[in-house]
């Protein structure tokens, strides 16, 4: 039962062959995009938002769903869901006499955790900025939902053929040179579409122009490596549901471990070799051919 030299060589050959596939295996779906400056993105200025929810209505319509009833206010969802890829929520503190609306949708991170999580590349970061979903690849494992720091991807739990659903930054509108539908309809200009670097510039221009009206922070500029969607607010960001997140992109740690282990299949091959050597060196006799081998 010892490893025959020929068998071992055969196996090693097969393993070496699979190493040739490694570049494909290791390619990062969001690699090759060192600069995110020219990505399409949105700037949501919550100090300008009046909470009219027109963005919510047109977004739902674009996704192919009708806002139910004549009084959409009464079935306003409490969070993003598989029928609402953007929603407007309200924060109010009567003691401090402050309030703010906040529009939620996918942040379209520069280095998205959902894209890193997806085992089948059903989620990819488009070079233009949008994080896109392909139901034809998706197996519905929902790891993207676990990984997303903004709890954005949603799932059609009520369907037998469910899909992951989220904002796609209206990539088809962008391709026609138009802004996203939510920014098209916003009556107060609280949502603007543009290139990421221009939006950041505009955000800081607004803060500097009215320093007492804004929190001096552009949310999304640095959070988890930055995102294509940026926020300005007049109240602290943690009050309107934005976590204090690390600046390093979330995929950095797990991907460095995965890529470290599988680089050229060194770790698996070394482990295999160690096992084979241990087997060879601890073998006193062959239990198949030697009668006394197992008599202890």
């Amino acid at each position, binding site marked *: 039962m010892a490893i025959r030299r020929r068998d071992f060589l055969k196996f090693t050959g097969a393993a070496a062959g699979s190493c040739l596939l490694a570049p494909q295996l290791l390619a990062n779906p969001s690699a090759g995009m060192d600069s995110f400056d020219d990505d399409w993105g949105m700037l949501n200025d919550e100090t300008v938002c009046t909470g009219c929810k027109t963005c919510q209505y047109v977004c739902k319509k674009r996704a192919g769903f009708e806002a139910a009833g004549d009084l959409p206010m009464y079935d306003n969802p409490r*969070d993003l869901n598989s029928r609402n890829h953007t929603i407007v929520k309200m924060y109010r503190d009567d003691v401090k006499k402050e309030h703010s609306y906040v529009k939620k949708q996918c942040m379209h991170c520069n280095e998205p955790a959902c894209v890193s999580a997806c085992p089948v590349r059903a989620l990819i970061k488009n070079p233009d900025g949008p994080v896109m979903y392909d139901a034809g690849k998706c*197996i519905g494992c929902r790891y993207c*939902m676990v990984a997303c720091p903004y709890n954005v991807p949603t*799932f059609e739990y*009520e*369907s037998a053929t469910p899909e992951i659903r989220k904002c796609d930054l209206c990539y088809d509108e962008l391709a026609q040179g138009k802004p996203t539908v939510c920014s098209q309809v916003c009556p107060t200009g609280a949502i603007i579409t543009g290139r990421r670097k221009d939006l950041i510039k505009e955000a800081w221009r607004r803060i500097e122009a009215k320093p007492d009206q804004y929190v001096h922070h552009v949310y999304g500029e640095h959070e988890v490596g930055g995102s294509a969607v940026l926020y300005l607010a007049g109240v602290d960001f943690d009050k309107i549901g934005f*976590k204090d997140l690390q600046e390093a992109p979330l*995929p950095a740690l797990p991907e460095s471990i995965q890529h470290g282990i*599988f680089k050229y299949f060194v770790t698996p091959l070394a482990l295999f070799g160690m096992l084979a050597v241990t087997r060879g060196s601890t073998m006193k006799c062959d239990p198949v051919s030697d009668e006394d081998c197992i008599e202890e």
Partner: protein
Amino acid sequence: MTAEERFRQKKAHLPTREEIEEYEDVMERFPREPQRAKLWTPLFTLGVAIIAVGAIITLVRFIFGLGAVTNLSDGFPWGLWITFDVVIGIALASGGYTTAALIYVFNDARFSPLIRPAITTAMLGYAMAAFGVVVDVGRWWQIYNPLLPDNWHGGSALFEVSICVMAYLTVLVIEYLPTLTDRWIQSGKPVAARRAMNIRRWLDKVMILFILTGIVISTLHQSSLGSIMLLAPHRLHPLWFSPWLPAFFLLSSIAVGWHVVIVESFISSKSFGRKIEMPLLAGLAKRTIIFLGLYVMVKFYDLIFYDEFHLLFQSWYGLLWFAEVALFGIVPGWLLATPWIRRDPRMLYWTSWMVIIGLMLSRANVFLFAFSATPGWSYFPSIGEILVSAMMVSIIMVGYKLFANYFPVLMREEKLQPAK
């Protein structure tokens, strides 16, 4: 070609008399046999009943979607099924690769009576983990997608887990094949026996490659199960989040595997009215002490290294952390290190259960208890989820009984070493 020639050609493929004797000899030294016990005991019937109920719920899930059966939500996307059926199931099934390593890498042939029970349990465990994934994922009809090269994403821990689980399940089935061939070798039907022997001869030549590959694959995906949560530091309580999670998961899988083999051996000894394989089981238990001890040490060192020790005394999570380290480490490690305890069947049996429950807690902590839902959401498993998980356990128990009953899995009793 005349009938005569055909016969000669056919005969040329058959093993010679010497080879047959050689195999009969091996069979005699490792004489495993089907138990052929009474099948429909009350517990077996209960198991089948649970499977029937679970099957109906599974059907409802496939027809009406996950929402019809589970309490999962957008704010808590992974629940009991991923935690128990998949993450805990795969850890508990690690006895297959650790026992294989003990016998075929460290060449300790004394443990040979335990390899087939361990492989059988592992195969059933992985099959149910894979089935659990199929039940849990939304788009299950595309479950083969990770195999298509266009979709490969090596950066995703879940990709590695999915590939490795599929590969290892295949390896386990191959490792199980000798049990099938032996059944026909022992059948007494000359033609079937000779054909089975031919297959067995070929299997024996390549088996060690599969065994070693199986061990490599196992260590890779057992650790990668821990890497899954590395993407979600914002979700996982800092007492559990650590870059060392993959190491914790690997270490604990090694420590728990043999305890599952021990418990399974006790249960099957009782079920089939056999002698308890005692000195072997105590030997296995003794070998886990070092891994339990290491686990406790790295868990403490993790908190010290990342300066999180004070978190232990700030909330109830600290208590959960202590419960995990006590059940999966300190208490059983200390018990097993006492020779009379690990040699006493009753004490060993319950200590092994303690380790298994500790392992369950350690995985559930990461995937359920210390995993924070989106604000405004919460999760508690539904009756349907619990019954489907119960079905998975029942399939493993019922399947094991069927395999041990009709295939040569267990060693003939007189060949077991007498209890000391």
